[in-house]
């Protein structure tokens, strides 16, 4: 149908490829990832590697099945990035099969059944995360205690293998709840926040990352740093991250002001859970977020509101994955209604009047 032999311009292009973009995102994730791996040690490293290699295998397998060349697709690093984000969102000491099943869900159900890269409606990593949470609630809500590398409580290599492949023998001694989970349970028993929060939350540790959670929940500061890199490299724009952060901050500030014993402060909201990772790395996924700046602002603000709503009144302590998936479903609708204004025309597409 179409002759794509370049006879007309442009004869030059920006030096940017899909793989280049994906790799920039991965570079931006490295500080937070390394910190998380340092914090949770060998079991976390095992799970991380298992998830990534499984994802690459499933990607290869699907492409072979579809009779498509596998190597170029693997080289674009999109499967690597999906697995990376998934691994960061899992409980760091989760058993090996969580990583394998999660990677399979993300690549097969989240991406390849839609037709591969660029075709999926939902963010593959978040789809897998939510599917795992619903299917295996126990494994997905068992949070390892912080046990930094070289500290006494850090598991050695052998213990690490044991945790990953044989499971945790003595769960209670090495695990606990996340801030948001703990607070939710306490609130359900009518305990005021001022009492319960003091037990578990320390603002400095939360922002720096010394607390229970998945790899992507620990250091808000390192995630912001990575996000800043992506903004600097113009891989993402400010619209989605800022609108999420601002909407969560605003609405939590309002409710916190109304009743500080029931509603968490903006600082707790912003420093805990998957918020920062979601804002900079997951909600900004090109494929599943709106195309226009205005659409992105709507998407981001709605994500923020949903995160706050689910955290505050929903059945789960953490809402980022659910919020993003819900908004992914609305992305085509947003793109349908929010379009740029064409030069010389009004928003309805009619020529401007003089």
């Amino acid at each position: 149908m179409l002759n794509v032999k370049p006879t007309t311009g442009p004869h030059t292009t920006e030096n940017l490829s899909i793989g280049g973009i994906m790799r920039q995102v991965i570079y931006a994730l490295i500080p937070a990832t390394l910190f998380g791996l340092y914090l949770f040690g060998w079991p976390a490293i095992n799970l991380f590697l298992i998830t990534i290699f499984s994802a690459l295998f499933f990607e290869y397998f699907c492409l072979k099945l579809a009779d498509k060349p596998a190597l170029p697709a693997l080289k674009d690093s999109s499967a690597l990035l999906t697995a990376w984000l998934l691994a960061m969102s899992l409980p760091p000491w989760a058993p090996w099969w969580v990583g394998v099943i999660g990677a399979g869900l993300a690549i097969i159900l989240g991406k390849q059944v839609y037709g591969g890269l660029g075709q999926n409606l939902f963010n593959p990593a978040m789809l897998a995360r939510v599917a795992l949470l619903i299917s295996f609630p126990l494994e997905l809500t068992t949070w390892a205690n912080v046990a930094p590398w070289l500290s006494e409580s850090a598991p050695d290599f052998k213990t690490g293998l044991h945790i990953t492949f044989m499971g945790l023998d003595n769960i209670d001694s090495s695990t606990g709840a996340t801030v948001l989970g703990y607070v939710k349970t306490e609130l359900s028993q009518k305990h005021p926040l001022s009492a319960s929060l003091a037990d578990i939350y320390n603002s400095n540790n939360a922002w720096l990352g010394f607390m229970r959670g998945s790899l992507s929940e620990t250091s808000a500061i390192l995630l912001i740093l990575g996000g800043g890199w992506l903004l600097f490299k113009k891989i993402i724009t400010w619209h989605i991250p800022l609108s999420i952060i601002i909407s969560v901050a605003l609405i939590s500030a309002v409710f916190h002001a109304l009743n500080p014993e029931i509603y968490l402060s903006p600082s707790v909201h912003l420093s805990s859970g998957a918020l920062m990772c979601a804002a900079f790395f997951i909600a900004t996924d090109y494929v599943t977020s709106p195309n226009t700046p205005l659409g992105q602002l709507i998407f981001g603000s709605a994500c923020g509101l949903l995160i706050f709503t689910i955290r505050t009144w929903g059945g789960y302590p953490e809402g980022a994955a659910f919020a993003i998936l819900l908004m992914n479903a609305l992305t085509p609708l947003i793109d349908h209604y929010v379009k740029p204004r064409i030069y010389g025309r009004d928003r309805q597409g009619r020529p401007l009047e003089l």
Partner: protein
Amino acid sequence: MISLMQSFRIRGGVHPDPKKTATTDLSIASDFPLPKKLYIPLQQHVGKPAEPVVRVGDYVYKGQLLAHSQGMISAPVHAPSSGVVTDIADYPAPHPSALPIRTVFMETDGKDAWQLLQTHTDPFALSAEEISLRVGAAGVVGMGGATFPAAVKLNLGRKNKISTLLINGGECEPYLTCDDRLMQESADGIIDGIRIMLHGMETPQAIVGIEDNKPAAFRAMKNAAADYRQIEVRQVPTHYPMGWDRQLIRYLTGKEVPADGRATDVGVLMHNVATAYAIHKAIRHNRPLVDRVVTIAGGAAGSPGNIWVPIGTLISELLDYCRVNRTRMARLVMGGPMMGDALPIAELPVVKATSGILALTQDEITRGSEQACIRCARCISACPAGLLPVDMANRIRSNQLESAVDIGLKDCISCGSCSYVCPSNIPLVHYFKYAAGELAARQQAQHKTEQTKKLIDERNKRIERIEKQKAEEAARELAAKVAKYTADQAEQVI
């Protein structure tokens, strides 16, 4: 100094590597040896092709009329040098298709002898109508690449009571420096051309917009315009496609041209700096447009530069003159790398629209294979017209051309910003050009079908009418016969 308000007026666009340093400091060369043969196409402008007035074997002087304009929108063509017309025949046009168009072949005699020029005239003693008549007779067309006959535009400007004449010194395409050099070296002539245009359109003021990556050109133009209060020289940000008339109009005046309108609807009109210079030469010196400055650049060019080139010179001769390494040249482009056309062969003539000849190496054009779209929306933020390139491409790919038009295909200016930024190497502009061509072809086919249907209808009606007439005649004859017979019978009875 660029105010914040003004920077909001820039939408979309990209910042390609300017690559202008190779030629921006070199004076325009005027020692290019006169070619032995010239190939002068009779259509170097939008509108109808010119009609030849010379015959094979005629001797012509430089600047002598070779072909006169035809119809409302057209421009005459003049001899770029002196010599003999050897043939008037079809020759490939400098276009990706290299389809043949009617061309005057000339053998030059090396004398480069001008036809007797009229004596010097004072342009401001001429009437406005006389100015556009003379500009039209000199064959001046828009030199920025649009090649719209300048005289038609002047008339348009006069009729529409233009408040501001905009002069495009943007030159936002990478590599090209012909306008930059012209402004540096001939600012006085350009400013004079602008004054003549103002006089010819009865317009009070002009604004010259020059991208801020050409400080020398800006200074030269500013100095040249210092004595004329009605001409303002302004810097505009370096931003592709700042040369798009509507982008520059919005930036300089804050006005937006309606989609179905013309620049004149908002009281402005735009000309290129090189056009202003050509008008200056046409009116002050009675010199028709027979040569132009061409930038020859690109990685394969051994000695790139800007050259005064007679129209009709084969590009291959320019390549040799600039020591272009043919084996390193992976693509030959006429115009800039963003909107220019790739030429299949080098044996094609330079025309009035040839701003640049780029001999690009493989490194300069490297482009991977097309990959899946990841909806990164870079094309959307790059589009200066506010379109959704990726959506339009998807619709075209599934052959829904009308629905691509619904979301703005016809507002696309093919500037190439979207293709330039696409990390998936999707040739978006090619899709749009394909769709535009296909739609035009369909429309033509439809028109043809309707015409045929109309003709058949008319034929059927004609046949029907003739048969009806025949039947009526037969009936009349029969009636007459009957009447006669009855009369005869009656007579017999009596």
